[in-house]
């Protein structure tokens, strides 16, 4: 493990059992991600990208192997601690946005701050600056159900940023967006990278092949990492 590593994955395996059928989703994954790096996990559907991202974000646990985030093993943390870990260090952006449709954009963005028990002034300030960064302040009071796909994704970005996490994990973030909105999303991602956030994007969208600020593209195939294409630190 290098000194600058923010995520270290060692001998990670994940399998699911359904009856007698054992499905090996991740096979002996070893990966190190440095602070401030932007990594694109490329692979077709079913290659294990989402599962790997879920384990990195503490949403799922491995079958075996170690996941260290900032030097702390998260794969064995009790539920209480894993929730704190996610709230403090991880911002997640999902393919289907995962917003509460009946809540406003502001309310959706506010949700990750609830466990932090901040004053309303602090919450307002954080939510406002997060919505501004994601360029969606003008829709702050609209309910999520009334927003377009691109707008929903920007609310999801604001929600991922509101607790100022060091790591942003994006799972197929442009799968439900048209090209224009995908490009806008990538632009925002570039800004986050400039801010020093560590970004991991799991995608099969060709738009990310030419991502100027990505440090590495890591191809995945059938649950394994198949080499890594370094693009050099920007």
């Amino acid at each position, binding site marked *: 493990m290098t000194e600058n590593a923010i995520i270290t994955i060692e001998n990670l395996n994940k399998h699911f059992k359904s009856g007698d059928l054992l499905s090996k989703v991740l096979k002996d994954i070893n990966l190190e991600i440095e602070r401030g790096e932007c990594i694109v996990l490329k692979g077709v559907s079913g290659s294990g990208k989402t599962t790997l991202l879920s384990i990195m974000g503490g949403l799922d646990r491995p079958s*075996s192997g170690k996941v260290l985030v900032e030097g702390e093993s998260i794969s064995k943390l009790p539920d209480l601690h894993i929730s704190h870990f996610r709230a403090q260090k991880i911002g997640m952006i999902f393919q289907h946005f995962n917003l509460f449709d009946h809540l406003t954009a502001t309310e959706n963005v506010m949700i990750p701050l609830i466990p932090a028990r901040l004053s309303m002034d602090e919450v307002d300030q954080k939510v406002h600056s997060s919505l501004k960064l994601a360029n969606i302040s003008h829709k702050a009071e609209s309910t999520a159900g009334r927003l377009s796909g691109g707008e929903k994704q920007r609310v999801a970005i604001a929600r991922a940023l509101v607790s100022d996490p060091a790591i942003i994990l994006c799972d197929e973030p442009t799968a439900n967006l048209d090209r224009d909105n995908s490009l806008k999303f990538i632009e925002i991602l570039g800004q986050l990278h400039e801010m020093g956030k560590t970004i991991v994007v799991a995608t099969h969208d060709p738009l990310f092949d030419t991502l100027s600020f990505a440090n590495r593209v890591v191809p995945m195939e059938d649950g394994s990492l198949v080499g890594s294409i370094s693009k050099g630190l920007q």
Partner: protein
Amino acid sequence: MSEILLSNQVIVYLLSESILFGLLLIAFIITLEILIKWDFGSYSEQQFRLERRAYLVMTILLFVFVVKFLLLIYFVFAIDSLSLLVPGAMCAAGVISANDYGMLLLLLKLLILFFLLLWMAINRYDLQAKNYPLFRIKSWLFVSIFLVIAIETGVDFAYFGHIDTLEPVNCCSTLYGQLEGANPLPFGLNTMILLILFYLLYVAVMASALSSQRVSFMVALLLFVFIAYYSVVYFFGTYIYELPTHNCPFCMLQKEYYYVGYLVWGALFVGTYLGLISSVMEIGLKVERNRERMVALALLSIFVLLCTGFVAIYYLRNGVFL
């Protein structure tokens, strides 16, 4: 098969207890496997599987605790309903004394609830740390609890299977041979000394808790719950029933007395449990449990106020003591 074993309440009760025992048996087998193979430092597939199974055990125990608590109330209701079948029984007190297993069963139930509550307190503390520091302690505690529950399940069947519906039993007013001339109070105490001890021990419990004398607190609490039981049955209870010869721990749980017994016994036992748990964790595990101790003191104070209140209200209304 006896009439008792075929009554609806007993069938429901024994079936529920058997299902719980089955669940606990699964948890017990898993716990033994965990105790043998547990190695928290390992990142192997086996260790991850054991950690997931440890969560299953926790879930089962939480479920069992909740159901056991409800089943204790149901148990009282069930034996109370059996008083119609047992000659001489007017309430649960008569049915519970129908054979030698009754009181043992009740004591086992109270003991099990205490240990389950202790397990939950230790488990809660264990999960607040990142490396399960009390994992082995709580696992061994569960093994012990399981063995007691296995005995309890056996006693359950023995008790209900041996209730004779032809032989008359003693009940309420003759409980513990009071009307046969024998003094039912422990150590030959009379009512006045019993009451003095009751209030003195309450003061001792409060004083030792507030001055953080943990061992003294635990000892005072155990003595208090012992004396409090007799005080309620043989003194305060008579003011609840407004009848000097009615010495029953169960009748006050009935509708006729507005279920006030649940409040009286609930405050006493939950207060005692929380107080003992805070002491055990502080003395044995060096873990500060001020909140539990304060809740215990509040509940015990409610209990003492309730008991005293019944006597005071009776005196104010009638101008005499019983």
